[in-house]
C-alpha cells in the first residue's frame, strides 16, 4: 500500500470509538493528489482532534456577525441549535434537520458523512424575501475539535432564496471544520448564496459545496475568504438543464501565514447555459492564495458561454499565489475565456492619491478596495454587498494597526 495520510490521520479508530460510530476508513488527500497539490494537509494531520460535542453556550458569543432582519440558523460544532435560531421563518421555506445518507464523492464528503451529527435541511417552495443566515460556529473545548456541518438546500421550481453563511469560531482555538453543502436549484428557481469564511487564525476549514442547477435556474454565489490558518472552499457546480445561469464569484484578503484555496468545477452538460467567475484577492505577510478553476463543456453543451478570471494583488514580497485554470471543451460552438493576472500596488496611483493629502496607509487601503471593487460588484444583493465590503474594510483597518 502506498503511504497515505490515512496512516496518521486523526479520524481513525480511536476517534470513532469516542463517537460510538464505525471508524472512517478513508484517507485524506495526500500531496500527490493533483487537485490538492497547492494545498497540503500536513499541518492538519499533526493535530489530534476530538469529536466535537455540544459546547454549552446559550447566548451567541459577541464576535458572531449578525444581519438585521435575517432569519438566523445556528450550528455549533456542526449541530443545529434551535434555541439560538429563528424558528419561525414564514411562508415558502421550511427548515428541518435530520440524519443524512452517506454520500460518496470525495474523502472529505465521506468523512463528513461518517461524522456529521445531522444535516440542516432547507426546503424552499416559493419566492422568499427574507435572508436566511446560517452561522456555523467552531468551538473547541480543552482539545481541538473537528466539526462536520452538513447543509442541504432544495429550491423547488420557480422558488427564490438568498442564503448567507458565516463560518466563524470562538477566538484563540484550533478546530477543523469540514462542511458539506448540497444545493439543488430547481427549474427556473433562483438561489443566491453568500459565504463568508472568517475562521479563527488557528482554524482549519475545508468546505465542499455540491450545486446542481436545473434548466432556466439561476445560481449566484459569492465566497469571501478572510480568516483561517488553512482554508479551502471547493465548489462543484453542475448545470443540469438548458438555459441555466451560474455566477460564481469571490474575494479574499489574507495576511500572516493564512492559506485560502478556491477550487471550482463548472460542469456544462447542456446547451445554452452561461457561467461566469470573478475571483480577486489581496495577499499580505506570508499568506498563500490558490485559485483552481476547471470548466468542463460536454460535447452536447453547444452555445455555452463560460468565463473565469482570477486576479491577485501582492501587498508584500512574502505571499504566494497559485492559479490554475483548466478548460476542457468538447463542444465546438462555445465561448470560453479565462484570464489571470497578478500585480502590485501601482506607484503612480499611490502618488496621485497622496498628492491630495491622503496618507500612505489610507491611500493603499483605497487602492486595495478599488482592486476588489469589481469582484464585490458581482454581489447583486445590495445589502450583502455592503456587508461584505464592510468586512473587507475591517480587515484593512486591522492590518493597519
Amino acid at each position: 500500500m502506498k503511504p497515505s495520510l490515512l496512516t496518521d490521520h486523526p479520524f481513525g479508530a480511536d476517534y470513532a470509538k469516542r463517537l460510538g460510530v464505525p471508524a472512517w476508513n478513508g484517507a485524506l488527500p495526500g500531496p500527490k493528489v493533483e487537485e490538492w497539490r497547492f494545498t497540503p494537509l500536513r499541518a492538519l494531520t499533526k493535530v489530534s482532534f476530538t469529536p466535537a460535542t455540544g459546547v454549552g453556550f446559550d447566548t451567541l458569543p459577541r464576535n458572531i456577525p449578525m444581519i438585521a432582519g435575517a432569519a438566523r440558523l445556528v450550528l455549533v460544532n456542526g449541530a443545529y441549535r434551535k434555541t439560538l435560531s429563528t424558528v419561525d421563518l414564514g411562508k415558502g421555506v421550511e427548515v428541518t434537520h435530520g440524519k443524512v445518507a452517506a454520500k460518496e464523492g470525495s474523502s472529505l464528503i465521506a468523512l463528513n458523512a461518517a461524522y456529521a451529527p445531522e444535516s440542516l435541511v432547507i426546503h424552499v417552495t416559493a419566492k422568499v424575501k427574507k435572508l436566511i443566515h446560517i452561522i456555523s460556529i467552531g468551538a473547541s473545548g480543552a482539545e481541538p475539535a473537528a466539526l462536520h456541518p452538513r447543509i442541504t438546500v432544495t429550491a423547488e421550481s420557480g422558488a427564490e432564496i438568498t442564503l448567507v453563511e458565516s463560518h466563524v469560531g470562538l477566538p484563540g482555538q484550533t478546530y477543523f471544520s469540514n462542511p458539506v453543502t448540497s444545493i439543488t436549484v430547481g427549474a427556473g428557481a433562483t438561489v443566491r448564496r453568500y459565504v463568508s469564511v472568517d475562521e479563527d487564525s488557528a482554524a482549519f476549514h475545508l468546505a465542499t459545496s455540491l450545486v446542481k442547477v436545473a434548466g432556466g435556474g439561476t445560481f449566484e454565489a459569492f465566497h469571501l475568504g478572510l480568516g483561517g490558518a488553512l482554508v479551502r472552499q471547493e465548489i462543484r457546480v453542475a448545470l443540469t438543464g438548458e438555459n441555466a445561469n451560474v455566477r460564481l464569484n469571490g474575494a479574499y484578503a489574507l495576511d500572516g501565514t493564512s492559506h485560502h484555496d478556491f477550487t471550482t468545477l463548472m460542469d456544462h452538460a447542456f446547451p445554452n447555459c452561461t457561467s461566469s467567475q470573478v475571483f480577486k484577492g489581496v495577499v499580505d505577510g506570508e499568506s498563500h492564495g490558490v485559485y483552481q478553476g476547471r470548466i468542463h463543456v460536454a460535447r452536447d453543451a453547444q452555445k455555452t458561454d463560460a468565463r473565469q478570471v482570477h486576479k491577485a494583488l501582492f501587498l508584500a514580497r512574502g505571499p504566494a499565489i497559485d492559479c490554475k485554470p483548466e478548460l476542457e471543451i468538447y463542444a465546438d460552438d462555445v465561448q470560453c475565456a479565462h484570464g489571470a493576472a497578478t500585480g502590485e500596488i501601482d506607484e503612480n496611483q499611490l502618488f496621485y492619491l497622496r498628492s491630495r493629502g491622503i496618507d500612505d496607509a489610507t491611500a493603499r487601503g483605497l487602492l486595495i478596495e478599488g482592486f476588489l471593487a469589481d469582484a464585490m460588484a458581482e454581489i447583486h444583493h445590495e445589502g450583502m454587498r455592503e456587508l461584505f465590503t464592510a468586512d473587507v474594510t475591517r480587515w484593512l483597518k486591522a492590518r493597519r494597526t
Partner: protein
Amino acid sequence: MSLLEIKNLHASVAGKEILKGVNLTLEPGEVHAIMGPNGTGKSTLSNVIAGREGYEVTKGGVLLDGKDILAMEPDERARAGIFLAFQYPVEIPGVTTSAFLKTALNAKRRAEGKSEIDAMEFMKLVKKKTEALGMPYDMIKRALNVGFSGGEKKRAEVLQMTMLEPRVAILDETDSGLDIDALRVVSEGVNSLRAPDRAFLVITHYQRLLDYIVPDHVHVLANGRIAASGGKELALELEAEGYAKYLNAAA
C-alpha cells in the same frame, strides 16, 4: 514672507540633470506662468515640488512659508497646502470620485483640527463645485478619471483644487485638451480661487490661457533654468517669436 520659494533647485531623473538651478519666488496673491519648450523640465519642477519619487534633488531647496518641504512626504506637503493639477491625471479603477474627494477633504480637515464633513454637507459642496465647472454631478459616482475624456480629466483636476482650496496651486498644462468653452469655465474656476493668501504656478504652452488667467509674472524655463522673466507681454512675445533665442542663449 514669501509663500513659495524655489532656490537654486537642481534635480535629476534617472541620473540625468534636468533642473539646473531654478530660482522662483511666489508671493501671496500672485499668479506666475511658466512657459518653455517640450522636455525642458516644467513637469519635473512640479513633480519635485509635489514630492514624487524618482527625482533626485542634488542642490537647492523648496520653501513653503520659509520652511523647506523637500523632506516631507507628498501627503504632508498636500496637507500643508501644495496642490498639483497633473498634466496626465491618473486613472484609479474601483475608487469612486466621490469616495476619493471625501477622503482627501477629510484628510485636510483632520490636519486642520476640524471634524469630518457630514454626508449632506459634502453632497452640497460637490454639487456647487461641479455645477460651477459645468460637470454633471453624476460624474462623481464614476471611478476616478477612468474613462474620463481628456477635457473631463482636466476639469476633474480643477474640481479637486476648488474643493481642497490649496495655498499653492500648480497647474501643469491644465488647458491642454480643453475645448474653447471648457477653457473659459475652468479659468473661471481658477480665478474664483484667486485670493490674497494664495498663489498659482500656471504651466502652459499657449498664450491664450493667460488671456483668461492673467498672470502677474511670466517665466521662460529653458535648459533647466529660468531663462527670462517678465510681465504678461512676455507670453505674447513668445507666441510670436518662439523659444529659439532662449535656447541659444542658454546653450
